[in-house]
């Protein structure tokens, strides 16, 4: 397992560092903008606007985790598909599905680390200026966006591993539609009740990669 993570780490370390810094940068910038509002108009203004209108002030972060997930999947699986390197990976004396699962697991864990860092950053600033109800609203509203990051990672991985272009396009179409579900409503906290189910579904999408692996092993080609 360490060796598998070692390979994934070599592949993705550059990107992960970049993703970590960039997502933190965006989250930090969002907090900085909030801080400017507080500085210019007072914290009251922030509270009043949040109470009166459907806004959480961090809307700029909406597609950042999605992008981080998509890119991680590409960085991790495009080299595997380059000249069918995946054959080497699957030839290793290790159960093949478990191998793929561990590779996905590595990606999910690194995204989790990155996103948790984002949340810690946002939480530590927001809890100082906003009441529990308000910062909970901000963080809950951002949660489906971050979940979309995980979903995007798993779905795009599936698209990458798929051996034929015809299916790759179909899978991409399905992925885009599935990812749309995460961005259906701009209303704050609209996903609260749906979120646990969406998270479960997201985790299950990891199983789609098994299908592509099976197709890869059967040698299906364009």
């Amino acid at each position, binding site marked *: 397992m360490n060796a598998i993570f070692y390979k994934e780490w070599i592949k993705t370390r550059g990107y992960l560092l970049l993703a970590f810094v960039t997502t933190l940068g965006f989250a930090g910038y969002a907090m900085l903008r909030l801080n400017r509002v507080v500085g210019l108009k007072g914290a009251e203004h922030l509270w009043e606007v949040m*109470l009166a209108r459907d806004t959480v002030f961090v809307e700029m972060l909406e597609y950042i985790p999605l992008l981080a997930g998509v890119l991680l999947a590409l960085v991790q699986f495009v080299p595997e598909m380059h000249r069918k390197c995946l054959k080497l990976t699957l030839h290793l004396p290790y159960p093949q599905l478990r191998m793929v699962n561990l590779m996905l697991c590595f990606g999910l864990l690194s995204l989790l680390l990155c996103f948790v860092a984002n949340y810690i950053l946002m939480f530590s600033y927001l809890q100082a200026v906003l009441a529990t*109800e308000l910062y909970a609203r901000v963080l809950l509203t951002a949660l489906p966006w971050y979940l979309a990051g995980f979903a995007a990672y798993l779905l795009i991985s599936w698209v990458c591993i798929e051996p034929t272009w015809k299916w790759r396009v179909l899978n991409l179409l399905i992925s885009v539609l599935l990812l749309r579900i995460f961005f259906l409503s701009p209303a704050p906290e609209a996903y609260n009740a*749906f979120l646990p189910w969406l998270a479960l579904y997201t985790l299950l999408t990891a*199983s789609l990669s098994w299908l592509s692996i099976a197709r890869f092993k059967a040698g299906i080609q364009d």
Partner: protein
Amino acid sequence: MIRFSKLFFCLTIVLILLWQLPWCYAFFAAKPSKIPFTLYSGISGDFISMGQVEGKGMQRRNQSGQVYTQEQTDSLLPFFYVRQLVSDERFPDTIMGVAVTPRKVQQTNFSFRVNASDINAAKVPLYPLMESLSGRVDLIMPEDVFRITANGIEFVRMKSNSVDEGKSRQFTDALIKKDFRFPARRLAGNPTARKDYDEGYLILDDEGKLFHLKQVKSRPYVRAIALPERLNINYLFITEFSDRKTLGFLTDTQNCFYVLNNKSYEVIKTGVASYNPETDGITIFGNLIDWTVCVRTDEAATYYALAANDYSLINSFSLKEEASTIRGLHFTSSDDKFVKPRF
């Protein structure tokens, strides 16, 4: 494992088709709603509908099909078209035997609108309580907001994000003195400075008793409102119309619609047959003589004409809503602001 992922893949395809096919159909075949804008005319004793008629453009007509011109409509709905009538110098001195002035009409006119999606949304349970009697003409937003916990009311200063213990205790004591049971079941207010005056909040306590809370000269004003026997209130709305006649609207668990009068705190059942805030939308255009209430459900729009003095039913009619969406999987709905799967 592979079998599971095949199954999961098929399930995903089915869900996507169930979701996207009706969406595509709705996108390409959707027709605008045909429910016309309708008001009750006390003068003709009938509803006048104004809307686009296919091939004929904008048409105004009553329920028996008689078509009116714009000018005729202005005269039949003098309260609604008051500004037009004044500008045409056609505004009468009396309407239906009541002496009126444009100013008086404008002051007593009101409109009220609530959609189901306003009710079914995640809200922040923090409420600004304004000073109702500041001595100033303009209202100003307070520097704190309150929340109602299981044990009391808590004021949080926005600037420092800290609880104002003294004020919290003062207001909690005032509520407890009036036999208020924490926490609150529902709460209705209108927290904006852009209104004529402030009536604070209507609060339903944990036992279903109704209270009126406002801040008067920095002190709590709490009034326990006596409710008719066996009235189980469900939803509350504060009105704050400029004529100050009403304090709020209420619905009960049977979806009956009540008016809460100002000053007397009288609760009066209206002639509206049924209004469920969770599923229906309501619009009210009120004037000195009568109110036109429209309750829109998924199936129909029902118009009620109510007398402005006792809210009794004068007239009503109903229009069937054509179902334009086909069955399938939807994630959003016009009835709420949530995303969740619904079949």
